[in-house]
């Protein structure tokens, strides 16, 4: 069971690399925000499955913080983008 969790955690984390391709290429700032959003979601999933792999429930709080604050950041940057600051 723990081996399965480890495999899932590694698989979900390795998708961040593909999202980073769009982060490097993206012609506008909006593309980069979309790629960053996806990367944060994949990082959250990898974090949750790593917590299940390591059998420490204390790691799960970091996942909640990461999920909520990454979307808060997206809202803040959309706000800045709308006001023409970027």
């Amino acid at each position: 069971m723990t081996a399965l969790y480890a495999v899932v955690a590694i698989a979900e984390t390795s998708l961040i690399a593909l999202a980073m391709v769009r982060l490097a290429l993206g012609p506008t700032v909006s593309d980069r925000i979309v790629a960053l959003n996806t990367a944060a979601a994949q990082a959250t999933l990898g974090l949750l499955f790593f917590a299940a792999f390591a059998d420490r429930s204390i790691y799960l709080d970091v996942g909640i913080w990461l999920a909520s604050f990454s979307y808060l950041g997206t809202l803040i940057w959309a706000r800045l983008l709308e006001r023409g600051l970027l």
Partner: protein
Amino acid sequence: MIVVNYLAAGALFCIGLYVVLTRRNLIKLVMGLSVMEASTYVLLISMAYRRGSTAPVFVSPPAGRSVTSLTHGGVADPVLQNFCLTAIVIGVAATAVFLSVVVRIAQHYRSIDADDVRGMRG
């Protein structure tokens, strides 16, 4: 095995130093300083890690381990992790100070090219 983390911290420091040495844009230079700070975080956390260790938190220990086995060397070093926490907080404060200095330079010289800032030449 953990040596790879030290090498990665060194590589991160070199990347930040490259940005600081070669770029002329002042905001890019502050970004290089942030990357160098990230290298110190990686170094401190990697030094705190011990073989087979887990987080220094004693509530709900992982399966197969008890609290006494955790207290006898089964956790990462909390002192270095606290150093890292202090480094993170000081890093964001220092970055804020640098950025406010850059904004003042931009208001005064109407440019953020490091070559145009002539106030510190003799």
